[in-house]
């Protein structure tokens, strides 16, 4: 019983065999992360300084601005670095919020079942039925759009995937002997939860979170594109693409450079996460992961 439990619920990473995809992914993501971390340390770093006379300089023409300047004459390299930090930072926060919230909700629903589970099912259904973009537009119309608001709203609406998986696991575990017997002997629920349920659940949460990062980056950048998200003059990938598309015909790099960063980041995360999901893919495809 216990043996099959461990095998079925814990991801199996027996031998560390780096697949070619993972290497490429690491390189892609690594480039973005390096840029984000190192560029602010350079002497010419200035993401906000405007110079209308030096506007729309192409890349590689001016040593002071290696990647060129935008419509207000601000250095693109600096702004890209800051935008990466902003978009990635927001994404990480959102994924963490959703993972924690969703897993918690799922565990409670699966463990306690009954009316709590029914209530949570209702809430998750409503969350799914409500178009998040419209919700955010409406909320930002009431309170001014800001990064914090976007993080809050997205962090509270993307948790259903986590909840579903963790609920199934928690519900199945709940029936197991090693959970039932301590309870009948008077053990505290909290103890059981922290000692047995959570450790079996969090590896799955981690896997979902890894694949979620890519999705959330795309959603966050779409919202930034729509003007909801961090506000000017602070840059973000989506808002830079939006500003750049006006100049697509004459100065395409303004939109293409942040687009490229997006591609590297999202593609990198995707390829990397494939490394970890490959082994457990079969297990997750089956409902509940317990056969």
């Amino acid at each position, binding site marked *: 019983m216990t043996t099959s439990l461990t095998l079925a619920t814990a991801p199996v990473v027996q031998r560390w065999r780096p697949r070619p995809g993972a290497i490429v992914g690491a390189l892609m993501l690594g480039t973005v992360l390096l840029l984000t971390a190192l560029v602010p340390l350079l002497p010419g770093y200035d993401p*906000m300084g*405007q110079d209308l006379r030096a*506007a729309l300089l192409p890349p590689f023409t001016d040593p002071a601005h290696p990647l060129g300047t935008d*419509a207000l004459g601000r250095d693109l390299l600096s702004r890209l670095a800051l935008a990466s930090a902003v978009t990635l930072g927001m994404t990480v926060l959102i994924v963490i919020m959703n993972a924690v919230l969703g897993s918690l909700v799922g565990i409670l629903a699966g463990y306690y079942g009954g009316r709590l589970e029914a209530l949570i099912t209702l809430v998750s259904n409503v969350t799914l039925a409500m178009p998040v973009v419209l919700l955010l537009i409406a909320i930002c*119309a009431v309170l*001014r759009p800001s990064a914090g608001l976007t993080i809050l709203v997205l962090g509270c609406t993307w948790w259903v995937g986590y909840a579903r998986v963790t609920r199934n696991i928690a519900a199945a575990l709940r029936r197991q002997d090693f959970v039932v017997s301590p309870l009948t002997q008077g053990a505290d629920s909290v103890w059981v939860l922290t000692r047995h349920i959570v450790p079996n659940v969090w590896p799955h949460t981690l896997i979902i979170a890894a694949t979620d990062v890519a999705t959330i980056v795309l959603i966050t950048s779409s919202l930034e594109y729509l*003007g909801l998200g961090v*506000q*000017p003059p602070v840059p973000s990938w989506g808002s830079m693409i939006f500003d750049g598309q006006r100049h697509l015909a*004459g100065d395409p790099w303004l939109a293409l450079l942040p687009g490229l960063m997006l591609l590297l980041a999202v593609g990198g995360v995707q390829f990397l996460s494939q490394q970890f999901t490959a082994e457990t893919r079969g297990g997750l495809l089956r409902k509940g992961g317990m056969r």
Partner: protein
Amino acid sequence: MPTSTFRRQMLSIGALAATGTLMLSGCAGGFDDGGDAASGDTPTRIVAAIPTDPTSMDPIKSGALVVLSVFFHTFDQLVTITADGELAPKLATEWTANDDLTQWDFTLQEGVTASNGEAITAEDVAFSYQTILADPTGENFAYLSSVASVEAVDDLTVRFTLKSPFSAFPRNTSLISIVPADTYQEMGADAFAQAPIGSGPYLFDKIQTGVSYDLVRNDGYWGDAPAIESISLQPVSSDESRVNGVLSGSLDVAPIGPTQVESVEGQDSAQVFSALSNGVVFLGVNSTSGVLTDARIREAIGLAIDKEAITEGLLSGLAEPAATTLAPAVEGYSEDVTDPAYDPERARELLAEAGYAGEPIPFDYATDGRIPLSADVAQTIQASLEEVGITIDLRGADQQAHTLKVRGREMEGIYLNTWAPSTVDGDLPLTDLYEPAGNNNYAQDPRTAELAAEQRGVEGASRLDVFAELLSYSNEQGYYVPLYVPMNNYAADADLDWTPRADGLFDFTQTSFK
């Protein structure tokens, strides 16, 4: 393994779902006839893009400016405003006022009929105006707020009695469309909005709300027949889509933003029209809030902004710096009104004098909507102000939220705004900027209120003098910081022979293809 019965069931359910969806999508109907815009020897059809969707097609109820691009073609108004901002006769051949400008008589054209044959006389004019006046919640009501009563004196004469003298009144009538009274009352407002009947040079051919408004030439029109046989007005909200539409041929003319002008100019298949608009982009100021109560700080804000850098650099020369809140095309504009030039040193001096200690000043702007590149303009202004030491709290919102704040007089600092009078006359902006009920009037200065009311009672040169006095005073006090007069830019088919209007609306009655 699934049984074969089960598989059959799955297949049949799948087929059912697929057919259902296909049928539903078939309900989308035949394709919109956007099609070939300009084809054939000399094209006779214009497809024009409008930036937002007009509201309903009932001219009594509907008054949002964009809908006038439709109504100018399908209905008659008493007068029309030409491309260079002058009044010209349309349904009315002439108009006179009494000595104190409180009573206006309009003489109508003879022999005018609506497209269904009903004759248009002073009765119909009176009916149209009276119906609007009867509904204070209507969109057109505000343009007639000066009117006490309107009556048909005889078949061809309409008399307006005003509540107080108003010299620019005829301009307001250019916005009000005349409906055939009997037809309107018979059909009822709702049915009329679905199938409107007017007396203009074009008829409604097909209305697809939010998609296209198709018009065809009215061969029974009382006036000169226009060259273009059919017009299709299509709401396209995205800047990019409008440009791509013209370049790819789906559109013949579309308003575009200043940054796209360059990309269109290089193409053989299209040309660019640029003309100074009737509007001014300016900074509104809440002079009763925080540090802005000090006139020196308000002056410093004006001195710290390099308007030429904005118009030449940011807007690629497609705007001109403004010294007042009225554009040159607008009646009431005077070249004598000046404001101080860019002088950041003097700005710093003033700030020091006033003892400014770095208190943040809120700066609200709309992220999209009426002012092209508003986000860039706002950021440039923020940078300029911070350059002289003013701390700015930049706050963006969508256009609607911004408008609601403006209308509610809820601004706490400075804010980006624009005013473009559709009557091409300074009276409308003055009411909003300087009269006590005006939404932008935080200062509530009795002198400006007095002058704003005074210009209505005088005409001609004396009226211009009143304007000049008011606007100069406003500049001295720093109640507003005029920034620039933007140009209206259009991408159009290379063969289009057309003169754009200053108010950005479409009127193709004088247009043709070369």
